[in-house]
């Protein structure tokens, strides 16, 4: 199961979501993409299916600044869910913020694999998705 079956995008920026979906489709990295407008929506979706490994995304692209529940709050909630999850979920922090504070904060979460600064380039996507295939 090296192929990324399910990717998850949590971001309130419609344009970004549109663009990233378009890129993924173009490169045929993944066929199932879940999109949530904020952290709360994502948590609400994931919580009931934590044990259904097949339903869970393989990769999450998480924004920081979002209304209602931002990326950090999502991570706090996700950490709580994690013990029940029996699947390797790679989380990328994807944000417009180039602030050190945010970059450093991301490092505090072992669950976060990397911090990607928007805009996402094709190369970044390839690294995130193709790497998984190997």
């Amino acid at each position, binding site marked *: 199961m090296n192929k990324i079956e399910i990717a998850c995008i949590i971001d309130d920026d419609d*344009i970004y979501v549109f663009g990233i979906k378009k890129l993924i489709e173009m490169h045929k990295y993944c066929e199932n993409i879940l999109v949530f407008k904020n952290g709360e929506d994502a948590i609400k979706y994931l919580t009931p299916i934590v044990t259904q490994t097949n339903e869970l995304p393989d990769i999450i692209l998480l924004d920081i600044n979002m209304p209602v529940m931002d990326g950090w709050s999502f991570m706090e909630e996700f950490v709580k869910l994690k013990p029940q999850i029996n699947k390797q979920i790679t989380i990328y922090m994807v944000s*417009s913020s180039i602030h050190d504070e945010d970059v450093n904060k991301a490092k505090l979460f072992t669950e976060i694999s990397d911090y990607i600064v*928007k805009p996402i380039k094709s190369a970044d996507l390839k690294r995130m998705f193709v790497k998984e295939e190997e």
Partner: protein
Amino acid sequence: MEDIYKVILEDTLSGYWDWNIPEGTEYLSPTFKSMFGYEDHELENSPETWQRLIFPDDLTVVLKNYKEHVESQGEIPYKNEVRYRHKDGSTVWVLCTGRVIEWDGKDPIRMVGCHIDITKQKEVEKKLKSTQELLNKTNEAALVGGWEVDLIQGRVAWTDVTKTIHEVDKNFEPDLESGINFYREGESREKITAAVEKAIATGESFDLELQITTAKNNLIWIRTIGQAEFEKGKCVRLYGAFQDISRRKKAEEQLKISEVKFEDAFNYSAIGMALVSLEGKWMKVNKRLCDLVGYTEEELLKITFQDITHPDDLDIDLENIQNLLSDKIDSYSMEKRYFTKSGETVWVLLSVSLVRNVDGTPQHFISQIEDVTKRKKAEQDLQKAHGELTSIFSAINYVSVIATDLDGTIKHFSNGSEALLGYTKEEMVDVHSPAIIHLENEVVARGKELSKKHGEEIAGFDVFIHYAKQDRYESREWTYVRKDGTTFPVQLVVSAVKNNDGEIVGYLGIATDISEVKNVYHALQESEKKFRKIFENVQDVFYQADYDGKIIEISPSIEKYSGFSREEIIGKNVTEFYYYAEDREKLLEALKESGNVNDFEVRLKTSSDELIYVSVNAHLLFDEHMNIKGVEGSMRDITERKQAESLLKDSHELLSKMSEQLPGAIYQYQYFPDTGKSSFPFASIGLREVYEVMPEYVKDDASKVFERIHKDDLEDVTKTIEHSAETLEDWNHEYRVSLPMKGIRWVKGAARPEKQPDDSIIWHGYIADVTEAKEKEEELNNTVTIVGEQNKRLFNFAHIVSHNLRSHSGNFELLLSLIAEAKDESEKNTLFDHLNTVSKQLNETIVHLNEVVSIQTNINLQQKSLDLHQYVENTLGILAGDIKKKNAIITNKIPEGTTIKYNEAYMESILLNFLSNALKYKHPDRDPEVRINYENIEGSPIIEVKDNGIGIDLNKYGKKLFGMYKTFHGNEDAKGIGLFITKNQIEALGGKIEVESKVGEGTTFKIYLK
């Protein structure tokens, strides 16, 4: 023609000559010849004739002139003043002129000329010249100048000296008038004018002492001597000498003054003075002498000194005078008696000296006459009393009265003498001299002493009577030897016995047995010895020194102080032991002033030359005649005390110097808890800066300092002091003082308390003005706040830039890359639509940022009075549609007419934001109810907006509530900008927002406008 001229020429006074040069013949006219004393026939007519008569020196001159005349073809004139020898041997001066009148080409053929006798003129000239030379030479040395007035030529000449005296330049050319004008106007000028006129008229010479005013305006005395020279009854010339006599005049004046002075001294002298002729006549007498003898001056001048001299004294006086006149003595003094006019006798001391002429001839006597009557009378009275005493003492046993004749043979041996000495009158009178009752060695020693003192051999009986002979008493101690060989001390007074005429006829020795006195003295010495034993064991050192400073006695304990033993010191002079000689002088001065000194500090020297301080108590010792005999006293080593004092002084000086440099004040504060009284026993000058109180004003009472403490802080200060007093913990306090000059200042004090035996507490502390530090601290705090705020805003702004703007640019980039890869037109169109959206969003963000930036940079926002109630109503009007749609109930509780000063635009924005939020976040289950309240707490208006909406989870979102782009409800129209902007606006105008909220129940915003 020639003959006629010849006749004329020969009749004139001039001589005439005519020389035929080629022939060598020369005609010499008779006048020519007579000029030299020869008859015509006596001299041959030839050039040799005159060449023989002319002076050889002058011949050379003449020939030279002839040669020049010829060679110049007559251009150079032939003219000479030459000398010829007269027949009688005298010199004849001739003015010789001539000319060649015939030429043979360049050779002279005939030359003619004439001789004029100028001898007289020459003689005058020569005389003048020589006198002048002589005058100049001699007179320059004597500063005697010469002058001459030539009345014929109207010429005046002054020698250099004369010019110098006039203080004119050497080139000065005087004339008669200017010469006269130098004389001082008035007497001097009149006299010289008259003298000159008279000299010219009559030839009378003059010699005057007059004053001139020199060219440099000095008025001086001169002597001018003038002589007239007459020729043929007419004055032709005045000449004379001129001399500066200012100095002489001055000397004369001084002499006059000194004469006056002498006169004064003579007249007003306190003793009688007189000039007496050689015969004894009073020539000049002063007032004092007149008073003395009771005669008037006129009366006295008519008589001689012999007339008023006591006959008994006259012979000696006259003998003395003879000795003076015969040059045996220079002067003499004697005591003699004068009779006054009223017949009384006055005793005088007469001193006479002789005044002689320059040639030694005696002129007169100068006498000084001093009245000694009183002294004489006193002497006589004394003698009389002495005589009386003699008779009294002879009756008394313990007094020995022995009289001798001039040779020393005992003539009287009183009863007392018998009793004291064991001899009888018979044994002694006419038999022995007093030597028998004296110790020989005492007499010899005394004799040596006297001999040395007076420079003459005094021995034997003279030892006793040396002073008595001179009419003086002598009283001294002697040892008398009794007949049995035993001795006893006596005080012996020896005096002369005189007859009625005052002649010494014998001597009287009165001796008093002083054994008793001596015994007492010995007893005293014994007790002293005992006493010394006592003081040897005392710290204090007793000492005794004689008048010259020789140490007679000192306690052995001195060795402890000085290292010198008693033996080393006794006999030495005290000066040797002073470290500073001036100390002794000061001590003596103090002693002489009051007779004693107490605790007088002097600095002495130890045997190792170290300095020790000694306190001296001393008093003078007197002998029986009340003469200072010496000094006695005690001293105590106070070196340690002095060193401690000096150390203390040094450290005190150091401290006060240091404390003066301190920015604050160091002080000692004493507080008595029972009475509440306090003072500053010491405070450095810095107290003046800190409290504006001089330290001396609070030395005894601290209240002046407490008056300065700020009324709001006084209680705290008092409490902290009391606390420190109770607990004896250090006192540290910072408080305000209210100063008359500097106003309110912050001071900070720190002090350490110490409990005193009298239960008072003394703090040693330091206090300083910390106003500046305080101000800086506050300033720093403010700065920190401001910087913090600004940092926050900067952070926000940076965040906005990095996040929001970047997210838009990120989207642009993303979309553009997709467009590049788009496969068909419709796909591209979709992407362009998206680009358009991103562009709009970017624009919106920029507008928001602009708003934020403008709030943060608007420092001075215009404010005006706003009707708050009305503003709320207006806002509700704007929101009317929304209110109706949501069926909201809005209650404006702001009292009508409430006005506040605020910025219009901000107020609109704030109200709109809160009210629209209240509607926006309504509870889904109920209609919104919003109340707008108002209160004013101490001038700060507060608007309260209370809704019954969904509420905010402040635990979760409290911090982020007012952040930019923070939304919490997932509302579609929530932008997360409203509260951020509102908060910024409120804070920009100095206000703040508080929020209370409960999820599900509602939210209350409190807006503190200022």
